[in-house]
């Protein structure tokens, strides 16, 4: 569950001398939103995002149409990129939730992963969502049940014990404080394979104080 397991290794990258036009096309063609800019040896020099492709109109204010075209075609990636010291980067050995925290706090969509100033990968929102998806075993069919329980120590164990008593396995499990009910805890996903909805309801409704608030095939 570390960044190095979820990041994209060998991401697409650009040289600082790539023209802006080309960078735009490159990002479009390959359907990417973040383009790290590297020098020889993959040393991180900067980062180009969709935002940085938008030129501050102030720079072009005094120019006529032809001049604007000229300036635009002459612009290089290095002119618009976020320069290296300002790019927020992470190391590949931090946990994935730590990376998520950085991205949420800074409100950014991507983190270049750097070791000794050298770009080793990139981790984006999509990677984190993919991580969430995997944690929730989205790809595997089963019964997804959300159980609400008191936020008290030992409650989850009861639930697990009930499932274990049936001889079922748990594909994925995740919990979070219930969003709108204080003092409760949502054992959000208990995903189980090879069981029917009825069996699950029957089994879980026997646990005291637990309430199935959502159950579906997924």
């Amino acid at each position: 569950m570390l960044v190095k397991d979820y990041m994209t290794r060998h991401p697409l990258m650009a040289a600082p001398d790539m023209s802006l036009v080309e960078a735009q096309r490159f990002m479009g063609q390959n359907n990417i939103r973040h383009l790290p800019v590297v020098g020889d040896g993959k040393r991180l020099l900067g980062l180009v995002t969709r935002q940085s492709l938008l030129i501050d109109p102030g720079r072009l204010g005094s120019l006529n149409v032809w001049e604007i075209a000229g300036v635009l075609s002459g612009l290089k990636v290095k002119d618009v990129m976020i320069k290296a010291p300002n790019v927020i980067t992470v190391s590949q050995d931090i946990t994935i939730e730590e990376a998520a925290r950085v991205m949420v706090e800074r409100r950014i969509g991507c983190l270049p992963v750097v070791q000794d100033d050298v770009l080793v990968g990139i981790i984006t929102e999509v990677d984190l969502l993919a991580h969430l998806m995997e944690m929730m075993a989205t790809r595997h069919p089963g019964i997804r049940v959300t159980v609400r329980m008191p936020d008290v120590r030992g409650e989850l164990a009861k639930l697990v014990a009930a499932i274990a008593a049936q001889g079922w396995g748990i594909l994925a499990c995740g919990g979070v404080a219930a969003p709108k009910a204080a003092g409760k805890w949502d054992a959000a996903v208990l995903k189980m394979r090879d069981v029917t909805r009825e069996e699950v309801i029957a089994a879980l409704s026997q646990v005291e104080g637990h309430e199935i608030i959502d159950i579906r095939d997924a």
Partner: protein
Amino acid sequence: MQQSHKPQTPILDVRDLAISYETRYGDVPAVRDVSFDIQRGEAHSIVGESGCGKSTVAFGIVNFLGRNGRIVNGQILFQGQDLVGRSPEELRQVRGDRIAMVYQDPMQALNPSMRIGDQMAEVLVVHRMMPRARALDYCVTMLKRVQMPDPENVIRRYPHQLSGGQQQRVVIGMALLNDPALLIMDEPTTALDVTVEATVLDLISTLQREFDTAIMYISHNLGVVARVSSKVAVMYAGEIVERAAVSDVYLSPYHPYTQGLMRCVPRLGQSKRESFLYPIRGRVPSPKNLPPGCIFEPRCDYARDLCRQRRPELRPIKLGHWGRCHFAEEIVQMGWQPPEDFVAQYTAERSVDAAARPLLKVTHAQTFYPVASQKLIGGKKQFVRAVDDVSIEVRKGETLGIVGESGCGKSTLVKTIVGMEKPTSGDFEFMGFDIAMPVSKRKLELIQELQMVFQNPDSTLNPSFSVGYQIGRPLRRFQTVPRGQVEGEVMRLLDMMKLGGRYYNRLPRQLSGGEKQRVGIARAIAGRPEVVLCDEPVSALDVSVQAAVLNLLLEIQKEIDTTMIFIAHDLSVVRFFCDNIAVMYLGQIAEIGPAEAIYAPPYHPYTEALLSAVPIPDPRAEQKHIRLEGAVPSALNPPSGCRFHTRCPRKIGKICETETPPWRDAGNGHRIFCHIPLAELRQMDPVVTVRPGNRLGRQHA
């Protein structure tokens, strides 16, 4: 599974690549219309026979085409950006940083006068501008990751002070220093012994996962390709003819050439008694002179008019399986039947009279080479114990195979038998005569009866004389036929070699490798010898040619009932071709017996390890994972007791180090030179198991 959401841009996407060389005969297209892609972290092989343009594609990617080569068409998209037409400086930044390469001969690839550390560190110094001291530390770490013993010491050494396997580790480590997105490996294990090859291939697989590096693996060896890669592109005469996942290509090939290749190689465990090799007829067209339609048409069994007229495109035949054939679907449904006459020709069973007196009997043979002492004054004279106490017997009509890693003494043994080396001691008896003497002291009649076929087709013939003269020379010398009939006899031999009279006046340089080898065989059998010794006669040949030459040897065996000793390092070929096999290790025989017995338990632990290392061109084959530690010890000072004890994975204790092992007789002439009791050896599991499934073109076997 996790990869699916990631950007679909492949690491390498080659489109319609064409490369030409400018020569004094005009522009010669070496590669045409090559398209393939390699995804992030994927191992993709390019397989093909020599001269088909595999390496040219690789060198095209890294822009190393020499002064006269150039890319005439196509794109090379690397991480989404085209490498064709980039400035030299941009390309330089890509090389060694994002694309790295590992080459065939590591000894040649390393600078002989620079220390390993300096050669590795400069990659970091140049690309990352790392200070040298830190770069060296980093190199040590990298050497550890490629499982190099004692890396702190290694970085201070020169290339020649390392073994071949270690050199290859250095080259691989050097390639990975900058964490490249693409690693091109051009026959990286071809020069290595099979056991070393196995460990290097393991290492490559491990590193590929660890570094998430895309690998483009170039090889001629179908077995190696099956082991390392998930996808494979088959190249023929500069074009890709088929491309798919490994299992698809190996189990249900669409292209007639791929099918042909699969029929050329013996599978481990097949023998000449129950199966055949089907060579592809004809030879690869010269790049100057390509057929107008399909390039494979002249050699194809299914060729039709359309094939002669229109060039097929590389097209998807089913999901993820591309082929360059107009009739791919039909061909697969038709199935393939070998020509009738072919089957008839090779099915006649030969029998060896097991009770017959041995034709050749070697007992307790020893051949030592003296080595100059290293000391300033005095010092005891030392000997390389190349062959040390070897006993073999060969009966008339029988074929004895000798296998082992390089330096195990198999060549020396054969050289001693033919008289090119002087034996140190032991009895050598041939047809009842003593032959423990160099060839110059033997009688001409005896010389005539022991002839040899050599390994290297390029040096087997004297470039200054015509084919006819060279085949005729032994006829004249041994007076096999009367003087006037020499020419006729040469013609007959040429026919027998399926060459024909028009080859009589040709010079060796006008012949292909396979043809040279046939002439070499003709010359060896011209004097009608009793015993022919074959020193790796097919190792240097491409697989399609190899099959033809092996068939030729079989035919000779059948027709003139020649006894053979056959040296090889390819265990499948030996198994296919030989009746009895001796496995040699460090100058001694570890195991000897009938071919089928060697390949099934009980094994000598060394045989077991060898079998486990052989790359098998069949994705369904499962092998036990046994890897030998360390290098073969020096024959100057072989280990005491059992010579294999230093590397033996089944070592049972002190006894292996101190006492010479006994011969364990497993019956039927099968003997194992090991301390482990026979009963225990018999309980071993077979090394290779093949999941059941249809094998193309072998139904009738």
